[in-house]
């Protein structure tokens, strides 16, 4: 029999601690939409997405109502478009982005990910054309998200792609400068990109995935923080234990939603992504968890250790709660989407160098960071190279999603609103890495890749 303490605990988590399922993401393969005629390919893409995802939003809302759990986002990820558009040389891939955008609008999702290319070892002509088209695609669409994988532990780092992406990030920001450079918030540069990630902006549907599947991303920084606050003075071992127990409960909820969505949509269940994903809402912050552990402000010395503990405990607690775990799974540290991070950046406690160190021990990487609008392409490329190196050597996913704030300087603010939040423009190191970046070539795969 259920006991009332458990019931009230769940209700309290939802009402007061921002417990939610962050996203139900339907992964859809578009490989069968490849067509020598680009217009026909786009029609097939639009039709397939609309057919498969027609009930996605409604099903998400029904489950949310029935189980009483907020499900914040319903989204779609698709096969990297470079693989589809590669069959249409000479055609501007932006028309594929427009087809995705139309489909997203029709089915009512708030993002569609997969305007992507995987170039960790080299470019195909389709990859190259797609990357070149990203600025136009992101400036002309509302819902499309883009990602490029430029490195992996197995393949090393494609430094030609790294050099290219610095410029692409700047162009995207320039073309959307009238909307607080929001385009750059929808572009992620990855190393070791997962193929089943449900979280935007980096979601795409990998080629090893089934025709269609349901992946769910859980959340719950507020719940973890509240549990730590209740525990009061206890040692670090006890802190890790509390986080594990809380992560277990949060993930079980995600698993239930994933199974239910999979059953109702008649689509296989893929994975649950065990992530602590913050939102700008007060109380829903990963930084506040670190502060609850005893740091005066996120970014202080000790932050990396606290985050490593948090990230590990979330996984240990979550992994038993779900039958299949995947995606990014870990604590996110997107600066503009986290009230505590925004505050820490504003007061100067949190810097780009500290964030880089933090990315070595948590999920993803330099995420949602506003940098000065006059940052040279090469500096952005070098930021990407550093992050990719951390990911490559540590066999983990890392990513860069920085937003050059066009026309703004350090201390100014960007404000996207909604889940993307806003925050201060942060200082970058001004010494030039240009010669290093322009050498091109590949960083060879590290010893860690030789596991056979």
């Amino acid at each position, binding site marked *: 029999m259920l006991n*009332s303490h458990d*019931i009230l605990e769940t209700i309290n988590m*939802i009402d007061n601690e921002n417990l939610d399922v962050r996203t139900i993401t339907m992964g859809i393969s578009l490989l069968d939409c490849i067509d020598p005629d680009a217009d026909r390919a786009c029609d097939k893409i639009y039709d397939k997405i609309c057919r498969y995802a027609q009930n996605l939003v409604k099903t998400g809302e029904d489950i949310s109502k029935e189980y*009483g759990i907020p499900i914040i986002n319903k989204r779609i990820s698709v096969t990297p478009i470079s693989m589809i558009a590669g069959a249409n040389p000479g055609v501007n891939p932006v028309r594929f982005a427009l087809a995705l955008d139309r489909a997203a609008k029709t089915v009512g999702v708030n993002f569609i990910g997969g305007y992507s290319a995987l170039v960790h070892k080299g470019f195909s002509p389709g990859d190259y054309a797609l990357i070149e088209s990203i600025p136009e695609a992101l400036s002309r669409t509302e819902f499309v998200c883009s990602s490029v994988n430029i490195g992996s532990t197995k393949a090393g780092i494609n430094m030609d792609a790294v050099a290219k992406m610095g410029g692409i990030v700047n162009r995207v920001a320039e073309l959307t400068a009238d909307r607080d450079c929001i385009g750059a918030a929808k572009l992620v540069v990855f190393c070791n990109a997962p193929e089943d990630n449900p979280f935007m902006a980096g979601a795409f549907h990998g080629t090893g995935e089934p025709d269609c599947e349901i992946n769910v991303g859980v959340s719950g920084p507020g719940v973890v923080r509240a549990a730590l606050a209740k525990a009061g003075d206890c040692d670090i071992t006890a802190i890790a234990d509390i986080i594990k127990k809380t992560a277990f409960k949060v993930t079980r*909820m995600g698993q239930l939603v994933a199974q239910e969505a999979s059953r109702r949509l008649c689509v296989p269940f893929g994975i649950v992504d065990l992530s602590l994903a913050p939102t700008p809402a007060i109380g829903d912050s990963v930084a506040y968890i670190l502060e609850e552990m005893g740091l005066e402000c996120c970014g202080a010395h000790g932050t990396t250790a606290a985050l490593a503990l948090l990230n590990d405990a979330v996984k240990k607690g979550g992994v038993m709660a779900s039958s299949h775990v995947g995606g990014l799974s870990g604590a996110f540290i997107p600066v503009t989407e986290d009230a505590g991070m925004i505050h820490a950046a504003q007061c100067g406690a949190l810097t780009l160098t500290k964030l880089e160190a933090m990315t070595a021990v948590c999920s993803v990487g330099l995420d949602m960071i506003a940098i000065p609008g006059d940052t040279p392409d090469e500096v952005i490329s070098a930021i990407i190279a550093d992050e990719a190196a951390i990911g490559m050597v540590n066999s983990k996913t890392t990513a860069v999603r920085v937003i050059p704030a066009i026309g703004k300087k350090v201390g100014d603010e960007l404000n996207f609103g909604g889940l993307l939040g806003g925050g201060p423009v942060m200082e970058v190191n001004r010494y030039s890495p240009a010669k290093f970046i322009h050498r091109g070539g590949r960083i060879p795969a590290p010893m860690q890749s030789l596991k056979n």
Partner: protein
Amino acid sequence: MRAVITVIGKDMVGILAKVSTVCAENGVNVLEVTQSILQEMFAMIMMVDISACTIPFNELSDKLTAMGDSMGLRIHVMHEDIFNSMHRI
């Protein structure tokens, strides 16, 4: 199918009566009721059987939530599986 109705808020006369009236009107059978005063707040938990419910779950939930709002109470209606999965291994 069983659901859990929780009512949280300031104590007043007739809460149980009003909630059970909505249940009765819509074919919802009340299986168990516990109520307590926690931190000066009234908290009632009802386990109900909704297999014979005459309206869709969503409507029942909306009805009770709206009634709660009008009385300054927070009323949740949730499928029991959410609690089973979160609190049982």
